[in-house]
């Protein structure tokens, strides 16, 4: 990692110095965070769809029960697991993240979940996107409710890098959903630039009135075309020599970094990552295929942002974890607690958070799953608080927050 004269390094230095002076570094960091301009902060949620197995992502190699539950798919240090703290280690395919962890920018929390256990992908993803587990009457998304509390109603404030609109961003606040900023314009085939411009004008006109979702969508298309056309930074190459891998994680984070660096008021970004995460069979192969691209995308994102990483909080989420024991197909079935990854200048990084409930048969949920220790809604709430949202009760409906999980300074 090249030298990075970021505010974060300054803060870290200040914190270390403060210990010698008798001040608690956490208090200093908190004060510094409060003083920072929260109006420039950006929250990025990366959603890995399919129910990622946390136990082979953040490997509890120090738990005596782990290898008994997973005789052929359990990962050992000798397999290339990168030790984090003497008890947990990173999947070998995620080894590239070890530097971010050492740098204090990356934290893991391997026991996130909620009491409304759903083993259905669809329900669990929906419950998470709406932040209303078990309540199917809530249709809007948690990021939309966050965006509503940020001043302004600009379409660039809330962006989903996805091929379909995720529920997270559904609701009254406008959002931009796209896959590629570089090709976002009306392209009228071989008719030439004149016809493209004519089509743009005439189609624009057709969408000016009308109140159904189709008309709203059309107006958002043209407003986004204009914003992108007038913001050259949105077409810029990655900075600091960052190289993104192919695939949806790489492409999504590359666009996310462009939006952040362009400084056009984007405050919340959702990156949808479909992939082979629903590992009912031959899990090792699937993880080995997906994880290096994910790690490379996160490393590139961090490098691309340079010191802007201080204003960014990236959360990697998934709908649920997987069974503690392997199944008959060298895979795992739908489970309970999942593992979150957190990257950014405000992350209390370089550590694995949360109490560890253990994997002994007596400590498993229904005898099959790792228990959770923190509700995902408390994680979302602390992220919203970090972003500067005032009324947190609007972010997660009908929920009494438990303790702040302490993931972010």
């Amino acid at each position: 990692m090249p030298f990075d004269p970021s505010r974060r390094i300054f803060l870290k230095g200040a914190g270390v110095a403060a210990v010698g002076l008798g001040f608690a570094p956490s208090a200093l960091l908190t004060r510094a965070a409060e003083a920072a301009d929260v109006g420039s902060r950006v929250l990025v949620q990366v959603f890995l769809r399919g129910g990622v197995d946390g136990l082979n992502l953040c490997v509890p190699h120090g738990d005596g029960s782990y290898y008994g539950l997973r005789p052929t798919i359990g990962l050992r240090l000798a397999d290339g697991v990168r030790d984090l703290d003497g008890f947990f280690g990173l999947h070998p395919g995620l080894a590239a993240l070890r530097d971010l962890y050492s740098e204090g920018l990356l934290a893991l929390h391997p026991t996130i979940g909620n009491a409304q256990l759903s083993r259905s992908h669809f329900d669990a993803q929906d419950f998470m996107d709406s932040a209303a587990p078990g309540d199917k009457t809530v249709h809007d998304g948690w990021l939309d409710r966050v965006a509503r509390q940020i001043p302004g109603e600009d379409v660039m404030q809330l962006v989903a890098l996805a091929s379909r609109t995720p529920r997270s961003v559904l609701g009254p606040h406008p959002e931009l959903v796209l896959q590629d900023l570089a090709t976002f314009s009306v392209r009228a085939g071989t008719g030439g630039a004149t016809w493209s411009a004519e089509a743009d004008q005439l189609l624009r006109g057709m969408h000016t009135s009308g109140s159904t979702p189709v008309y709203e969508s059309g107006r958002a298309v043209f407003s986004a075309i204009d914003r992108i056309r007038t913001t050259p930074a949105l077409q810029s190459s990655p900075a600091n020599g960052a190289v993104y891998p192919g695939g949806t994680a790489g492409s999504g984070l590359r666009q996310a970094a462009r939006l952040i660096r362009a400084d056009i008021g984007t405050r919340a970004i959702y990156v949808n990552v479909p992939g082979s995460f629903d590992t009912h069979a031959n899990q090792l192969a699937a993880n080995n295929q997906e994880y290096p691209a994910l790690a490379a995308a996160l490393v590139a994102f961090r490098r691309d942002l340079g010191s802007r990483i201080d204003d960014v909080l990236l959360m990697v989420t998934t709908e649920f974890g997987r069974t503690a024991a392997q199944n008959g197909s060298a895979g795992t079935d739908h489970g309970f607690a999942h593992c979150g990854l957190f990257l950014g200048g405000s992350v209390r990084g370089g550590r694995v958070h949360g109490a560890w409930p253990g994997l002994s048969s007596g400590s498993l949920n229904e005898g099959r799953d790792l228990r959770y220790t923190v509700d995902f809604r408390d994680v979302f709430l602390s992220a919203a608080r970090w972003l500067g949202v005032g009324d947190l009760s609007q972010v997660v409906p009908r929920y009494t927050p438990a303790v702040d999980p302490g993931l972010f300074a």
Partner: protein
Amino acid sequence: MTPPPIGPRVARFALDRLGYGPRPDSIDEVLGRGPERWIEDQLAPSPDGSLETRLRPLATLGYSIQETLARYDADQRTIGTALQELRTAHFIRAVHSRNQLEEVLTDFWFNHFNVYEGDSPTRYGIARYEMDAIRPHVLGKFRDLLGAVANSWAMMSYLDNYLSSARAINENYARELMELHTLGVDGGYTQADVQEVARAFTGWGIDQRAGAFVFRAASHDQGAKTILGQRLPASQGKKDGEDVLDLLARHPSTARFISTKLCRRLVSDAPSEDVIARGADAFTSSNGDLAEVLRAIIGTADFWSEAFGPGKIKTPHEYVVSALRALGAEVTSARAFVEGSASSLTSMGMPTYEALDPTGWSDRGTDWLPNPGSHLARMNFVLSLVSQTTQGVAVDLRTLIGNVDASNAAAVTAVVDQRIFGGTMPADVASACRSVGSTGSLQAGFKVVGLALASPAFQAR
């Protein structure tokens, strides 16, 4: 059945809901035949010789799974040829078949029982799955459809049941069978039921040498099981699974779940309790006869009153097929518009056969729009279509406008309104279409059609 007074608007509505929208001559055809008879024709598909002729060049469609394995297993990359032909066949049928309802339903049920072409060995059986397990049953009995799916290579592979055995249970298929195929997630089953159903289906798998479904008695859990309170005695072998399918197919939650999904496809994103109940009752009283369920839903005021509302937002697939039909296009390859450019179905978020999850694609229009990225890809798709630059698609404007002067924007606009919109083209769309300039290499008529199909009015059905 009580359709409202018949006119071009209602004919277009019937074509939009029970098919993929009008081709240039379809509205006249429905008006000529009368809507009741046209609907009965759709409920009883008849042979379509010209469709078969169009499909004939696609040799891989006739391959058995064993033949597909033999040809492509050594080099998995080359199976792309067969998958490409399958995609092309899917669009040729949707665009050209006279049995439009059969095509809509084949797509609907494939999506209901979704499998993903990227999964191996699923992909070797995906063509036979659509043609042999899904298509023959879409207007038949639900139990036959459910059984054909359960006894298929593609489903047993995709949901990992071929890896499940008495010693090593895999509960993936068992869960989705109840959650997605029959009862619905709130249909009243428990985790214990999932585990018992998984036991019942142990031994259901695939024979990779024969390229076929197989039941392996040695892998089957011969113990007794209790599922939804019903006891399955010990030592039944394959009958365990068939009993479970019987139980699920006649469960009231299944009747309701299937009716709800069909109503969502045919009526609206949020169908009324009333129309759902009509479909569910028909399902129960006809012992799961899917044509009867459709008759019940189509026979409601809920259905026909949709002809006078803002419509249901098309999925990208529906949008692309309806645009190809409206233009009277001749499709010989789907490659360019499925995966080709920034305006393909991939950019719209719906690459054919590539729904990764067992849930399939969303059947709610509002999950597809608003979405600026996908919406722009729709506009650019039709604009490139009328520029005649989409490979594998031939467009002859004469098919749509006949002898009308192609350089006369106003005259072409009038034809498009009549033949494609059934006279419902909004005034601002018509006025924009009439105003196109005649400069440039593209004829005004093509511009008119491009704008009309890119307009808000064509995004819903």
